[in-house]
């Protein structure tokens, strides 16, 4: 391991431990690491945006290719900065309105089709007990209906209706449980990666 690798990986190890130190209690090492992460991320993103957005989408088309139509969205973008002035902040409503309008126009048809109609169709499949697939379809349909009943608050959750709502809450709990389990796995994965990094670094450094 070269000197550069020892120093940089050593710094990474120090910052990792500094972040972990918050688990004991708040301390200056944690604060330094925290501010460093925020600062580096913001700086990195600014540079990435400059080279991947401003240069190819504003500078090159306007200056090198004389595509002056690109100035219009650039002006809209610049107007966003009027938010910093109390007197002129109302101007920023125009680019925000344009942004919202484009966003809604793009999102609404897609949302209806991809996130409502197609999943709805997938819920309404043939059901039965003769095969596992048909039984799974029955489970899905019953689970969805029961979960919807749980969120129907215009009628008191008593009797048969209450029973169905209870099945609904159990269905939701199964979903939350799966989500929780996968979240634990995700967080532990991050911990494993950091511990593996620390082990490998120390093994290389001390040769054990």
């Amino acid at each position, binding site marked *: 391991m070269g000197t550069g690798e020892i120093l940089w990986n050593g710094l990474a190890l120090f910052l990792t431990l500094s972040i972990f130190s918050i688990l004991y209690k708040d301390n200056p090492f944690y604060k330094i690491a925290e501010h460093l992460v925020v600062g580096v991320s913001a700086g990195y993103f600014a540079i990435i945006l400059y080279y991947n957005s401003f240069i190819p989408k504003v500078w090159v088309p306007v200056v090198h290719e004389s595509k002056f139509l690109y100035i219009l969205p650039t002006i809209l973008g610049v107007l966003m900065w009027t938010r910093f002035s109390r007197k002129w902040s109302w101007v920023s409503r125009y680019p925000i309105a344009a942004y919202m309008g484009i966003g809604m126009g793009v999102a609404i048809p897609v949302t209806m089709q991809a996130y409502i109609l197609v999943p709805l169709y997938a819920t309404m499949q043939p059901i039965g007990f003769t095969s596992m697939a048909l039984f799974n379809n029955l489970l899905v349909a019953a689970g969805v209906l029961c979960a919807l009943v749980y969120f129907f608050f215009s009628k008191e959750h008593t009797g048969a209706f209450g029973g169905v709502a209870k099945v609904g809450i159990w269905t939701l709990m199964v979903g939350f449980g799966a989500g929780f389990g996968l979240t634990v796995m995700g967080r532990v994965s*991050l911990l494993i990666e950091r511990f593996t990094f620390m082990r490998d670094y120390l093994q290389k450094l001390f040769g054990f």
Partner: protein
Amino acid sequence: MAFYEKLMTMDRRVVYITMALAVAIPLFVPFQVPIHTTSEVKSVYDFIESLKPGDRLLIAIDYDPNAMAELHPMALTICRQCFAKGIKLFFVTLSQNGPGMAEQLVSRLSKEFNKKNGVDYIYLGYKPYPGLVILSMGQNFRISFPMDYYGTPVDSMPIMQGIRNYDDMKAVIAFEAGWVADSWIGDANGRYKLPVALGLTGVMTADYYPYIQSKQIIGLMGGLKGAAEYETLAKAKDRIASRGMKVQTITHIVVILFIIVGNIGFFMSRRKKL
């Protein structure tokens, strides 16, 4: 203080130290756990296996360093499988801190397989506003990416000859650590019918299972487990994720034990109050 009250008021630092030991100790103890593959991961593997040399795949590296532990192993394994089969890869990243991740992946694998930039693969780079970029690529890749990540005009590259939009791609394999996955499903698949396969962080995985039922995605790989399954299917040499699964097993046992202990304390204290 009664035993159950001690359970309920356990110092959180005890939990942290126990978890740290549960992660650290298995890293030094050599043992393996069996990895069973699931249909949602196998369908992604089978899809890639069904492709022929020269077929084109879009690879979306939409994750930041904080999701690297989960998504990098699966991205490495899939790209290796593709390069080994002679599939041409079109890399793109729509996550703000993704360019570095993608660059690392591309440079490492191109050296490993001796693949040429602009011939066997192209790294288109990053553009902000994922939804709009995904829609624009459905019309023409050149709208958002007139140049590749390194500043070379894409039209000067052999790999881009005859390539216009998603019609020229077999699918997108999207490695996702955020809501960009929704755009791939809604915009790329919903509007342009581009087949989508997802590699997801563990936290996101449960939310995307319904899209398998609705056939909006080919399949998905969830977190480290999904990556380990894929490594098993692809018989990967560098089994980064699979090595992590032994630690996952131990830590999950510890978490389950803590849940049981916490519940014992809760129910005993409730019974005492009654």
